[in-house]
């Protein structure tokens, strides 16, 4: 199995690589090459920082259409998941539009960013095989994806929101599985075994 980690300068790729090492994944590549991404069996799309800057980098690398057109399982992590959506309030920018939801700022009544371990529930995806309801995952974010038909797990921080989404071969998780202990590791493993 070949795993491609999309390297576009906006993600904590080192942590994802180490997590794959711990899982014993032999073949993965850090890449921004469209062909290599297209031919991978699984694609991981990490992301950190600001949405607008990340989208700009994807455009420069001519990866926007490549990612949208993928047919193998692809996992967006954190900002990666948010970029799959139609629009982000962060920088008021359109996203890749794979999912119809908008990315919105958390209400002012809660501290921003949400930082730390929160429970995830209403788990409804093969990603969560062997993961119990209310498992703890590590999150850092100020913007969230609202609830929608594509929601496959929720968390609550000021309000209930989508902490994981899924549509066809596109999977998105707001939390960092690579930083969420053994259960996070399990979720990564579930994705790779899809």
């Amino acid at each position, binding site marked *: 199995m070949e795993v491609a980690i999309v390297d576009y300068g906006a993600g*904590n790729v*080192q*942590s994802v690589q180490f997590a794959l090492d711990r899982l014993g994944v032999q073949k993965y590549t850090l890449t921004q090459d469209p062909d290599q991404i297209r031919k991978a069996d699984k694609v991981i799309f990490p992301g950190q*920082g600001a949405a607008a800057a990340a989208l700009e980098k994807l455009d420069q690398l001519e990866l926007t259409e490549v990612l949208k057109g993928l047919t193998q399982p692809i996992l967006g992590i954190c900002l990666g998941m948010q970029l799959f959506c139609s629009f982000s309030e962060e920088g008021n920018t359109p996203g890749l539009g794979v999912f119809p939801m908008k990315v919105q700022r958390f209400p002012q009544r809660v*501290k921003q960013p949400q930082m*730390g371990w929160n429970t995830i529930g209403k788990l409804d995806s093969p990603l969560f095989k062997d993961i119990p309801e209310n498992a703890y995952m590590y999150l*850092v974010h100020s913007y969230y994806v609202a609830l929608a038909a594509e929601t496959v797990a929720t968390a609550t921080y000021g309000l209930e929101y989508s902490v994981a989404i899924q549509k066809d071969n596109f999977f998105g998780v707001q939390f960092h599985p690579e*930083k969420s202990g053994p259960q996070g*590791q399990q979720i990564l493993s579930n994705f790779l075994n899809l």
Partner: protein
Amino acid sequence: MLTKRIIPCLDIKDGRTVKGVNFVNLRDAGDPVELAAQYARAGADELVFLDISATEEKRKTLAQLVYQVAQVLDIPFTVGGGISAVEHVETLLHNGADKVSVNSAAFRNPELIDQIAHKFGSQCLVVAIDARQIEEEWIVHLVGGKQPTTRGLFDWAQEVAQRGAGEILFTSMDHDGTKNGFANQALAQLSELVNIPIIASGGAGKPEHFSDTFQQGSADAALAASVFHFGEIDIPELKVYLQNQQIPMRI
């Protein structure tokens, strides 16, 4: 529900853990990698590594250490100590650190906060503030609390939040090392003033101090060093105790 975090802090010098560490089952208590893994297994929510090496030469050792820690650690960790430039941050993040903590350099050059937040995002930036009370006023101190400034804690905290810090690590020099509890009044005031998470530091001695800082001090996380290193407080027991006080904990 978002849980409150328990954060052990490890002081690092020349790539080794300093301060005696009283862990059983450790082959090498001075090895930060092994210690980090042990803390992760014990249920620490996050770790902070504070590098107290002084020279540039030694800082290279730190980058290597960060890489080794990131290889084994499956929980987030922050690295601080002497970071004064965007390039330092870049090196540490590239080697696998999740967050960096800046202190004196940010005070002397506040633009550094904007630069780091802009380039890497607020989520990876902790601004550490050391302060002590002088005539009833909380005054920011630099160089590990040795050098007083003329700036008030609350004023500086608001500025760092505006400039893009993702989190504030507040150490009360008056409480640090006393084991008499955290500076809860000042912490509560900070939480009122800024809308970013606050890590309480300085004064942990007993489990009650942790419940007090979460409940009275409104802290989002609590950091301690010696009580954990010397085994005076056991992290799994502490977390059960706090959960019994209705404080949300990851157990």
